[in-house]
């Protein structure tokens, strides 16, 4: 069995044609993969298709020129130059048509590239006695018949393109992500765009002889799209994309010799299957991952109820006590407990479960939301005996920004209607930057900055203040600067930014 496998894998490596295809294909795939990332991020996939078709006219033109002018047959450099010229011409025409008329860009691409391709077809057939280009070969490619000239073209084109992209990586990165900022800091956005277009044409030219016009766009964008599903950084995406390109070529070529199929077809089929597999199993952006995520999800509400319950208990609690006290299905609550243990919100202690430091912070955040909602409900005139019950529902509306806003609108209250202390937004440890309105009595702080709306309060950056108890039903903030007492309205206290100092009472 292993002998058979070894034979199947090693035998093709003894054949020169196979080695050549492998080397040529891998070179092409690496460059295609890297460039393809930029192509899909700039939503230029259709343009890649257009360029690959347009190059037939360039190849035919270059061939014909050298043949008629110098009598040279199939002069590779001339065909290469011709292809790049044809590509640039196509891009120029597309831009021209979509800019000067009401024709939209995607339509313009479709019109121009088929036109240029058709010109190539006509050229090849009209001069068929001079130009010996096999149209079928051009369209389908022949990866197993890679000539030395093709290898050279792929190597040179590939190294030029890779060097340009690596050297000017930041330029390509920023013009793809935010061309306006790029322009603002003096990067020639248009030039970078042209450089990319020329790179794409070079890549396409070297790939067409192997996989053909129809499949080249797949080699350009499929590995890149596969990598896109797995990466959160462009560098990583390019690396993965190159790897996926290489694996497609290797896998495809083996398929091709084992089953005696078309080389280009096998490569692209392998590439596509690879994409589908990743689409299914990718850890974050994959279909399975999304499905599992939804299934495993414990309602946020249950988690929060558990946190709130544990915080109100003295010491550790048993899981049984939690399931009895919190509303919800037993299995869901137990799952919530397991997840909270692994998320280090809870920890196992001697007599059951207790809050970790992180869990305590989360629980205090909830308690803060709860008591702010109580203060709010009290103010809207809800009957005191119902306040707690409604707040228990509303505490789940606790997005940090919204709680922050509510705290502000309520005038930063210190206590809820039952006289319980409302926890501060975050732990006020030394160095914490906040507004003076958020200071708690007894806290010592240094004034960092006074913005415009508080200029009239008499405080300046650099002052050291100690917060006193509020007056006037919490509407007047009292700060002590040395012996002096400074009174602030809400508006002024909001405009003063302070940093908490250590060593207070």
């Amino acid at each position, binding site marked *: 069995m292993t002998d058979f496998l070894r034979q199947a894998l090693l035998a093709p490596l003894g054949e020169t044609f196979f080695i050549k295809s492998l080397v040529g294909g891998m070179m092409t795939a690496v460059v295609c993969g890297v460039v393809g990332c930029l192509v899909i*991020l700039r939503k230029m996939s259709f343009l890649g298709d257009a360029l690959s078709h347009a190059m037939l006219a360039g190849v035919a033109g270059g061939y014909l020129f050298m043949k008629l002018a110098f009598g040279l047959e199939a002069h590779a450099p001339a065909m290469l130059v011709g292809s790049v010229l044809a590509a640039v011409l196509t891009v120029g025409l597309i831009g021209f048509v979509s800019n000067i008329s009401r024709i939209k860009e995607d339509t313009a691409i479709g019109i121009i590239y088929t036109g240029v391709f058709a010109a190539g077809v006509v050229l090849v057939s009209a001069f068929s006695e001079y130009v010996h280009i096999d149209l079928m070969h051009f369209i389908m490619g022949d990866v197993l018949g890679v000539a030395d000239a093709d290898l050279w073209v792929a190597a040179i084109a590939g190294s030029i393109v890779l060097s340009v992209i690596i*050297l*000017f990586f*930041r*330029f390509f*990165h*920023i013009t*793809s*992500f*935010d*061309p*306006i*900022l*790029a*322009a*603002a*800091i*003096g*990067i020639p*956005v248009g030039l970078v765009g042209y450089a990319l277009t020329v790179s794409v044409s070079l890549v396409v030219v070297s790939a067409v002889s192997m996989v053909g016009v129809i499949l080249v766009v797949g080699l350009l964008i499929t590995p890149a799209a596969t990598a*896109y599903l797995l*990466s*959160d*950084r*462009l560098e*990583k*995406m390019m690396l993965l994309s190159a790897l996926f390109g290489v694996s497609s070529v290797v896998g495809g070529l083996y398929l091709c010799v084992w089953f005696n199929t078309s080389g280009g077809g096998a490569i692209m089929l392998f590439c596509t299957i690879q994409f589908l597999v990743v689409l299914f199993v990718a850890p974050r952006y994959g279909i399975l991952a999304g499905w599992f995520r939804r299934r495993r999800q414990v309602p946020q509400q249950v988690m929060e109820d558990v946190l709130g319950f544990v915080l109100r208990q003295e010491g550790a609690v048993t899981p049984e006590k939690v399931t009895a006290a919190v509303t919800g299905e037993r299995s869901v609550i137990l799952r919530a407990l397991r997840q909270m243990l692994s998320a280090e919100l809870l920890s196992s202690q001697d007599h059951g479960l207790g809050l970790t430091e992180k869990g305590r912070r989360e629980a205090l955040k909830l308690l803060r939301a709860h008591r702010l909602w109580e203060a709010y409900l009290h103010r809207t005139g809800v009957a005191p005996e119902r306040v707690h019950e409604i707040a228990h529902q509303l505490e789940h509306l606790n*997005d940090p*920004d*919204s709680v*922050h*806003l509510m705290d*502000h609108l309520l005038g930063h209250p210190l206590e809820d209607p039952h006289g319980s202390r409302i926890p501060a937004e975050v732990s006020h440890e030394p160095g914490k930057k906040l507004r003076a309105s958020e200071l708690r009595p007894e806290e010592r702080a240094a004034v960092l*900055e006074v*913005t*415009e*709306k508080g200029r009239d309060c008499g405080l300046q950056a650099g002052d050291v203040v100690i917060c006193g108890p509020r007056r006037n039903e919490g509407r007047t903030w009292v700060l002590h600067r040395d012996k002096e007492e400074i009174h602030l*309205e*809400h*508006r002024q206290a*909001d*405009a003063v*930014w302070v940093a908490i100092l250590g060593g207070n009472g």
Partner: protein
Amino acid sequence: MSTKADAPPAIDVRNLTISYGPRPALLDVSFTVAPGLLVGVIGPNGSGKSTLIKGIVGFIEPDFGEVRIFGRTMDEVRGEVAYVPQRGEVDWDYPITVRQVAMMGRYGYIPWWKNPQPRDHEMVGQALEMVRIADLQHRQIGQLSGGQQQRVFMARALAQGARILLMDEPFAGVDAATERAILDVLEAAKTRGRTLVVVHHDLVTAAEYFDRLVLLNQRMFAYGTPEQVLVPSLLSEVYEGSIRSFEMLAAAEQPGEGRES
């Protein structure tokens, strides 16, 4: 604009005309902004507000006219102008982390053959701290909430260290809490002497947020303090027929109303 005679204005827009077709998007727009002001750009949809920002930032070549930044041309002051795009213009699926976006603010100072220097990393770190998203710096930008996403781009502008900040509709589609968080950053930037130009769509809050307003609809209708610009005769000319906004505006003009701390 009574500034010291020797200090050039932060932004000097002279006879700016920009077009995408036969009808100019901006026609002969001129105004000067003194350093340290918070300027709002208002006008109906399609009035050229975003175009004005893209013109100042140098993304679009004007057909005529020019923009001077601290008395110099845009090419001479590369890096002095930071730009915060409209939320809808950003590809939030782009494979890039919060920190990498902020680092882009430094790209103008890093020669192409070099890597970011320790100083660049330091400035990026400070900027992320300043807008309070340092703990999210290795997340991909699509994984943040709306308000956090807005702050990523603020951090980028701060990391750039630019003296002028241009923002395209930072308040569009954000909730009240985020709006307040953004205002904080704006005010803090102003306190540090930055000049800000902000595209804004809401007439009701315009007077409250900004020191100066530009009223735009293809050409410039007014530039001045909110009291000078938000007058019914001008507004009715610019916002032909959209009566409803005036009623809201009238309500907001009541003394003491609509003025938040």
